[in-house]
């Protein structure tokens, strides 16, 4: 076979692997019980070589799951050596340090054998609605209080399910049907991926698959190094302060770029908290790498090769590298803000490529019925505030960045709970002013169909400190969580929504970029016509209007 044809075949296999993991993700969505998986795309799915290196990941998914899973399979292989793996095995864990950062996330890994030889592994992660214990929120004092722990172990051995594990799991969670159903979904999606991969092996052979794997990793690493080479060598520091629970948290980092790649070091960051907002190192690395990849080499496919160019460190005992048994349930709160911190450094190198700060931390509404209610429910609906403005265009309104999950449709939540959504609309003027506006947040007002009391478990950020604008752009609005009667709620912790009241969440806006007086006048006219601006806010953009009013 000529060189050109051989290269063509490698690319063909790479494309096929990407299609296979996308089908794996779709199978997960089609069979999942967890609403966050099937409606919001809160999942990860990927294929790994026999050394545990990720070769391809599904586009559907979120960095918190995907990049942690990229590291997790290596941990699985240390616990269960490849030589001991047999066909029909399925492995599982929800270990926050080995997996995806908190106990709600189950990672399932399935080996694929061809003629008795291990040729690949499939991995997938979902967030289950309940894991027992505190299950969500910031109030646990250690990880033991947070729920039921499953170390890396076999879920199935040569095709036989571990019924003991399933019995224990069912007995320890509030929603055993959903949680067990989700484990079955994880097994099903990996199986679908494995079947497609074996068909690929039938067609091309195991040697070609191995060569394609090496090619993927080498080509991706090389492409990332070329992208890094565009940057000057040096170090840049950035600091971002965020709300925290009862005291602010300081995120400090030094980003160093050299011939080896990019190193992000979080020395100087606050130490671990007594609240469940600590971020296991793997989750910190996941979102930090994601931020770097957004700006440097974004077109390079995400796999072990492209990720190998980025190193992320935080001192042991830091809030970004907490040690067991620190509580970690709400690690997304800080984790999803890490890209903004990293952008603070990247903006100094590539000001024309980096967005302003975003609302970032998802404003998920974790709502539950009161104990003893005749209509029990427990849901999490995913929602996003505004994204920071981009250097050449506005930020996206009510769009989840960096998590990249979909907002769960109201219709779904209303179909499975006694809740009613009275409002879900753009929060006019919440995006920071600028030549490019920050994305607007949204306002959600939700109540109980029968007027019963219910509760919210809040983990909201950007309530005190807003998303900052850049290059003269204005800050986004801070978020507000309150009752319809006007009483403010705390942004963290479990609180009641009294009978007859409704919950109102006004989500933060993203920061703007550039001088608002430079904003294109046609765009401004459109903003006004569409009601995107708050009353009087147009004056920030057009001082002439102020003159006209005075005249």
């Amino acid at each position, binding site marked *: 076979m000529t060189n050109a*044809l051989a290269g063509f075949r490698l690319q063909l296999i790479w494309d096929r692997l990407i299609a296979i993991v996308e089908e794996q993700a779709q*199978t997960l*969505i089609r069979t999942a*019980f967890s609403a966050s998986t099937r409606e919001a795309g809160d999942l990860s799915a990927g294929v790994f070589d026999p050394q545990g290196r990720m070769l391809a990941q599904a586009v559907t998914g979120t960095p918190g799951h995907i990049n942690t899973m990229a590291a997790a399979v290596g941990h699985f292989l240390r616990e269960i050596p490849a030589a001991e793996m047999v066909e029909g095995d399925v492995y599982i864990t929800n270990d926050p340090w080995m997996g995806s950062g908190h106990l709600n996330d189950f990672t399932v890994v399935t080996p694929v054998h061809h003629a008795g030889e291990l040729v690949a592994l499939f991995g997938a992660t979902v967030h289950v609605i309940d894991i027992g214990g505190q299950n969500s929120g910031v109030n646990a004092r250690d990880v033991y209080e947070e729920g039921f722990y499953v170390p890396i172990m076999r879920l199935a051995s040569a095709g036989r399910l571990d019924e003991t594990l399933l019995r224990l799991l069912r007995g320890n969670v509030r929603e055993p*049907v959903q949680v067990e*159903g989700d484990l*079955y979904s994880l097994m099903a999606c990996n199986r679908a991926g494995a079947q*497609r991969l074996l*068909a690929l092996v039938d067609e091309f052979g195991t040697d070609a698959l191995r060569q394609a794997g090496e090619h993927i990793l080498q080509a991706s690493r090389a492409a990332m190094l070329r992208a890094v080479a565009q940057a000057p060598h040096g170090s840049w520091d950035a600091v971002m302060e965020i709300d925290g629970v009862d005291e602010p948290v300081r995120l400090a980092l030094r980003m160093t770029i050299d011939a080896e790649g990019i190193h992000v070091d979080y020395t100087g960051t606050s130490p671990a908290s007594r609240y469940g907002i600590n971020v296991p190192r793997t989750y910190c690395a996941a979102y930090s790498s994601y931020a770097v990849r957004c700006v440097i080499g974004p077109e390079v496919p995400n796999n072990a090769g492209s990720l190998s160019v980025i190193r992320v460190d935080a001192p042991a005992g830091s809030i970004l590298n907490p040690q067991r048994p620190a509580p970690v349930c709400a690690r997304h709160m800080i984790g999803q803000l890490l890209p903004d911190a990293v952008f603070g450094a990247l903006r100094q190198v590539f000001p024309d490529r980096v967005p302003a700060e975003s609302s970032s931390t998802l404003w998920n509404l974790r709502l539950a019925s009161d104990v003893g209610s005749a209509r029990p429910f427990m849901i999490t609906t995913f929602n996003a505030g505004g994204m920071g403005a981009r250097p050449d265009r506005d930020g996206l309104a009510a769009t989840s960045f960096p998590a990249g999950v979909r907002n769960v449709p109201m219709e779904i939540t209303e179909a499975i709970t006694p809740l009613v959504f009275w409002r879900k609309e753009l929060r006019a003027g919440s995006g920071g002013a600028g030549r490019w506006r920050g994305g607007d947040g949204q306002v959600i007002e939700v109540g109980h169909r029968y007027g019963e009391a219910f509760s919210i478990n809040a983990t909201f950020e950007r309530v005190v400190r807003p998303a900052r604008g850049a290059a003269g752009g204005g800050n986004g609005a801070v978020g507000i969580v309150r009752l319809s009667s006007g009483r403010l709620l705390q942004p963290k912790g479990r609180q009641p929504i009294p009978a007859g009241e409704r919950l109102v969440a006004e989500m933060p806006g993203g920061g703007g970029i550039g001088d608002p007086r430079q904003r294109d006048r046609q765009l401004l006219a459109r903003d006004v016509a569409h009601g995107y601006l708050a009353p009087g806010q147009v004056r920030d953009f057009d001082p002439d209007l102020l003159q006209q009013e005075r005249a």
Partner: protein
Amino acid sequence: MANAARVHAIEGGRDVGGYTMIAFGGGAPLHAAAVADKLGMRKVLIPKGAGVGSAIGFLRAPVAFETALSWVQRTDALDIAAANAKLQDVARRARELVVSASAAAPVEDRRVLMRYRGQGHEIEVRLPSRELVEADRAGIEQAFIGEYTRLYGRSIPGLATEIITWLVAVRSPVPPPQRLPEPPAPSRAAPVAGRREHTDARSGRRESLDLVERAELVPATSVEGPAVVVEDETGTYLPRGWRATSNSQGDLLLTRTRDGGTA
């Protein structure tokens, strides 16, 4: 494409080797023989007008009407009488429509979309095409479990199932096709209209392809690969080891003439 066919066939429990592939559409005749090689098939049919096969098919397809009725029911608590009433009503109205466009007695097909309670997506399960009876509750659930296991490898024990949507499709019967007379054995080669240089993807070798006009490939003529049979709407690529002949209707019949056609 071959993978998709294989997977589809495997899911249906079939081995495709002994089948004839029918290829149509602007692109299919270019790839058909090569895909057939991968699947171990020896016969390919390129119908007359293959390049516009979808349009022809649309005109010749049976008259059909399908209704999807949203009516959520727990399978183990299915209201049989209400289900029969709804299905009958829907089927009657569909039959009236179909019969108004095609007089022959129509054929009916009933399916449901089902899932485990708590899931968000359904799979399709066949229903018996008759009035439902009490025993059918268990039968429908068994059919769901069988289909779910086939698709996803495992069913989930102890979970209730539910029916979300009821599908009733009514269509006019398709008359059985008439049998054509056997085409005469080819006795002469079709005239070659030109030649084209080409690189065979598998072997990497340069080859010279004979170009034959489809209109010249009448019954009793043949062309041996490597060749391309050209026409306005498409072109049929014949790899080495394949032969093309024509039947009285103007369809092209491709046959593999020797083993190891995948070399």
